[in-house]
């Protein structure tokens, strides 16, 4: 006699749990979808030069700003500069807007944007950083990768 209501109670709980799991699954699907459409893959100069980076997709690139490569427009805020891995792979970045304070030639940089031509990157955002001593891990890796490739070649 005692089990009857207990069982009914358990059944309700089971249904509730099933509903909850289904709901959580649905939510997770949405979240993962949102995640998937908002990730930006990172590419190093050597990958950009080798044509491994996709065109027309939002990606991130990084490396060092080549000395003497910064060119400003006289009329607008457009600026162009070369990004290099210091081992021979170089591509051009074009950006319109205000560069972060710590941006300068010979410093690490990470940019988000779209690769429009083979070696031309249209940046939407140039990453600023708090600290001069801080090197974005991506850039450090990109330089390492470039260095390794150059080392293998010679």
């Amino acid at each position: 006699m005692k089990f009857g209501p207990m069982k009914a109670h358990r059944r309700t709980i089971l249904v509730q749990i099933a509903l909850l799991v289904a709901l959580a699954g649905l939510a997770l699907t949405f979240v993962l979808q949102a995640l998937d459409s908002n990730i930006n893959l990172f590419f190093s100069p050597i990958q950009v030069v080798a044509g491994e980076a996709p065109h027309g997709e939002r990606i991130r690139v990084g490396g060092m700003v080549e000395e003497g490569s910064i060119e400003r427009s006289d009329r607008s805020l457009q600026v162009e500069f070369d990004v290099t891995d210091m081992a021979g792979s170089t591509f051009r970045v074009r950006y319109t807007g205000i560069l972060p304070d710590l941006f300068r030639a010979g410093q690490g940089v990470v940019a988000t944007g779209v690769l429009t031509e083979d070696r031309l990157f249209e940046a939407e955002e140039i990453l600023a950083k708090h600290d001069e001593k801080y090197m974005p891990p991506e850039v450090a890796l990109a330089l390492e990768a470039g260095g390794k490739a150059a080392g293998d070649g010679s």
Partner: protein
Amino acid sequence: MIVELGHFCLVIACLLAVLQVAMPSIGLSRGNLLLVESARSLAAGVFVFTLFSFGALTLAFLEDDFSVAYVARNSNTLLPWPYKVSAVWGAHEGSFLLWTLVMSVWTLLVASFSKPLEQLFRARVLVVMAALGVGFYLFLLLTSNPFERSLPFFPSEGSDLNPLLQDFGLIVHPPLLYMGYVGLSVPFAFAIASLWSSQLDVSWARWSRPWTNAAWAFLTLGITLGSWWAYYELGWGGWWFWDAVENASFMPWLIATALIHSLAATEKRGVFKSWTVLLAVFGFSFSLLGAFLVRSGILTSVHAFAVDPDRGQVILAFLIVVIGGSLLLYSVRAWNLKSVVSFDRTGRENFILANNVLLTISATVILLGTLYPLAYEALTGGDKISVGPPYFNAVFVPLMLPMMVLMAFSQRSRWWSTDSSVLLKSQWPMLGASGALGAFVSWLLGGLDLWVAGVGTLAFWLVLNLIGELRRRVKGRSSPWQRLLKQPLSVWSMVLGHFGIAVVALGVVAAVMVSEETDLRMAPGDVETMGQLKISFFGTQAVEGPNYVADQGRFEIREGDELLAVLKPEKRRYLASQSVMTEADILVRFGGDIYVALGEPLSEGAWAVRIHIKPLVRFIWIGGVLIALSGFLSLLDKRYRARRATNDAKAVTETQKETVYG
């Protein structure tokens, strides 16, 4: 000499913390009350020696002792003295020393202001806090010693504090944030102590509530200040970036917010007992996770400290021990914990449940987005990705909208069950009025916008419900105003906190949807028209600060012919580090902040200029401060003051009662 003394004090503090774990534990197992009580005096000792140590480092900064490597890296003789003090926590080692100091402060506070706590229970709480402290001291001493000397060859001049940190915001932001982060260790310690003693009744919830409220209020204040600082000092004009480190502070806040609500339900109604314990564990775990993310340099972040993987690994190990240990204890002790109390669908318990579900899910999806780059890298064998703000907006906003709706209703709810006539009373008229108000605000801000009007509606609806609830409390009394003033502070605290949420919501939606932002090239004499405003640029002149030189721009802001203000943003170059920094100038007004910053100099005296007009952006921080105040206000509530006056014996009998009936 003083530096060595500081180092020595730190070692002593660590040893005392070890004793604070060992002696009361032995006392508890042998029933020796003298040993049990030693926890309190040891807590005082730990605090004093940590304070000495912190003072020694501060002195090293004030005296420009560049033989200390940390001082040489983060200070300079030209640095104004207030910044020499704040430079103590300007980088990893010193900020972690501050962290341990804050830990010892909280431990001392618990030791001194928990008289009503049962003696044995308090000792357990102090043991848990000391154990965490030992971990922090060891980490500091072994991997991040701020007292390390670079003898015999040390620099004659320091390399200066990062200019971004030379600002009032940075003097107060870390201490407040750490009070919040580390403060979450108190509810954690209460939860662990209750698991440890198998005393899983509702008393731990009652005791830990004021502590949780205090920590949460500090965390709120710290985050708010950080956002304000990012707005005026980083030179970007943004106030939230979904940056990994911002998320690291926001996740514990979300969990702590869930915790203060669930603690209320546990204390008042004895429900969600085991869930509340779990939340307390996760709140502090998220704090530690934040410390790990910031200090390991594992994620690309504007906030990241210089990278040191070893430190990251040590914190990660500590994190695993803390989370793993707590969950193990939880699974052993709390698996059969049941709440016998039932409640109705319309009861306040149910609203709190919904609040907890939504807040926990928010924290989880933010965690997912924050850690996804790490998982991706591990799974794909080294591919680096970043997750952009659109993800966080896409998952967070849809969770917050129903949250606001529930928040509005919940103000009218009662424990156990709410009569539908009470819950739904005048909701339609109020919704109508809020819709009108929302639309009106949106129109004021320059044209109907669905988002502004919508979120505005929700915000006003919440406010009207708060007013409605206050009105109900005083209705039918002979002197309603007096009655209103006599409402307990806990009621006012609740009203203030939720009102703050409404203010933040309005500020956020206005700042996101209505602000005007332009980056442009301006030569001296150029005039830029934005709506009613004319902004003219009159070139720059050189000015000198104590430790920097700057180009100071002159901008006149006119509305029609009336001169509203002259803004003088600066581009500074700090002498020691040669780093360049933007100092924006902001005209604060109700119709919208006018924010002007200098980018970089272009040809012929022209500059890249950033102009933002941000309506209601102040609401974000005003709201944040109101929310924090609500937390502090709750501490002043009579029931806490009254309890402090009661003696231990009464608390013990109360506990026993709870054990029997809970």
